[in-house]
């Protein structure tokens, strides 16, 4: 993966303006303003409880599942506002997919897992479904390992394979943005390396936003990195800049391990 060219500004996929998430009266995170680059990898780092996951989940309106949650501010995907009145969160989530920290495959077969999003979306042509399932599994670098056992229960796969299955499942719907909430934190180093390689590859087709508590991982996979602390966005810059000469002292302290 090469760092983004220094003098080329990539197109913006997601525009966030003054987004703030409240849980009841308490502020969870914000206000956050940032532009997320298209077809690049953006990472959110920060200590536990800093709000990075909360902010991530507000990008595909998953925060609304929590009853006391209230969101102000604006998020636009290619100019379409996500939080407008009359916008159906279901339609947002078809364009912005998500992969979770612990893999959560359905207790169905491997192919049914990947096909789930397609069937839910109304696709009925079995041949098309099979084709897209294969394509998604190939994108997720899992096809070769499972092509002979597509009907086996997904829960029989290893942890790393299950996570790649979840990625395939998310990719099958062909979202424009893929959000990943600490996708490798439950995996061993080799499985993690596979996932990171995968992120590298899919970032040429998808906009990826990843939350990670592992700074080295952010340094390895992300083109842009945002540092969150105590519910605030502290610094947001190209990864190579943030990790060699951060502008903010708090960022410097955190990434060099001078916290606590």
């Amino acid at each position, binding site marked *: 993966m090469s760092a983004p060219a220094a003098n080329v500004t990539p197109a913006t996929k997601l525009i966030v303006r003054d987004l703030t998430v409240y849980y009841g009266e308490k502020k969870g995170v914000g206000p956050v303003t940032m532009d997320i680059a298209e077809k690049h990898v953006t990472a959110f780092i920060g200590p536990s409880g800093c709000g990075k996951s909360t902010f991530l989940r507000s990008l595909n309106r998953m925060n609304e599942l929590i009853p006391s949650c209230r969101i102000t501010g604006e998020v636009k995907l290619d100019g379409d506002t996500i939080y407008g009145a009359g916008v159906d969160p279901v339609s947002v989530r078809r364009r912005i997919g998500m992969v979770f920290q612990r893999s959560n495959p359905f207790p169905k077969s491997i192919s049914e897992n990947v096909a789930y999003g397609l069937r839910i979306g109304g696709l009925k042509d079995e041949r098309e479904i099979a084709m897209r399932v294969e394509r998604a599994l190939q994108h997720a670098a899992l096809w070769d390992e499972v092509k002979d056992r597509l009907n086996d229960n997904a829960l029989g796969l290893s942890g790393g394979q299950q996570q790649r299955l979840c990625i395939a499942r998310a990719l099958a719907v062909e979202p424009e943005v893929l959000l990943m909430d600490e996708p490798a934190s439950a995996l061993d180093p080799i499985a993690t390396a596979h996932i990171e390689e995968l992120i590298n590859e899919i970032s040429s087709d998808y906009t990826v936003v990843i939350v990670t508590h592992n700074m080295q991982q952010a340094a390895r996979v992300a083109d842009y990195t945002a540092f969150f602390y105590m519910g605030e966005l502290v610094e947001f810059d190209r990864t190579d800049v943030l990790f*060699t*000469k951060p502008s903010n002292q708090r960022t*410097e302290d955190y*990434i*060099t391990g001078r*916290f606590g």
Partner: protein
Amino acid sequence: MRTVTSREHTNREYEQELRRLREQLLLMGAKVEEIIRGSIRALTERETAVAEQMIAFDKKINQLELEIDELCMQILARRQPVASDLRFITMALKLVTDLERIGDLGVNICERVIELNAEPPLKPYVDMPNMAREVQEMLHEALDAFVAADADRAQRVIVRDRNVDAYYTQIFRELLTYMMEDPRNIFRATRLQSIAKYLERIGDHVTNLGEMVVFMVKGKDIRHGGRQLE
């Protein structure tokens, strides 16, 4: 001792490793200063014994270079330093090279001094000690700037190199006249000119040190042009 960032590492061992690295660098710097001082003293006071001592002393400096390189490698492998720590480690590796070169140049000076002291002095040494003092002060200032993480101080050191270059030109011209005057002066004059050249190169190395301190502190690479900070 002020450090680049005012807080300490959460990991005590890491903090100690960085501290040790800093101490070793300063130790090496002090020893290099001593060699320069000794070599000039050997010249001005015609003390061959001191020159020989200094040549032996250089071994310690080489030893320190190996130690510091090893320490840097370990830190890089184990700690994955970033930001200011990363700049510090990578610059430490280069500082060490420059310091070691300065030490070698000191040894070269001593070798020439031994040759010179075998014959009567060519002329009273006026400019040479001044040039040497300038260089020594620059080295001292550069090391102080490193300790204090003071980029402005380092910047001033860089500027002073002009004076060293001016001294060299002056000394060279003067020695030229001696050589043209009388062929029997050539041996001593060339030796003196070598010493002046060595001092001038030491000045260049010290300038490198200054540039590195600036990068370490500010994250701006001012080498190879752009000597002024914006």
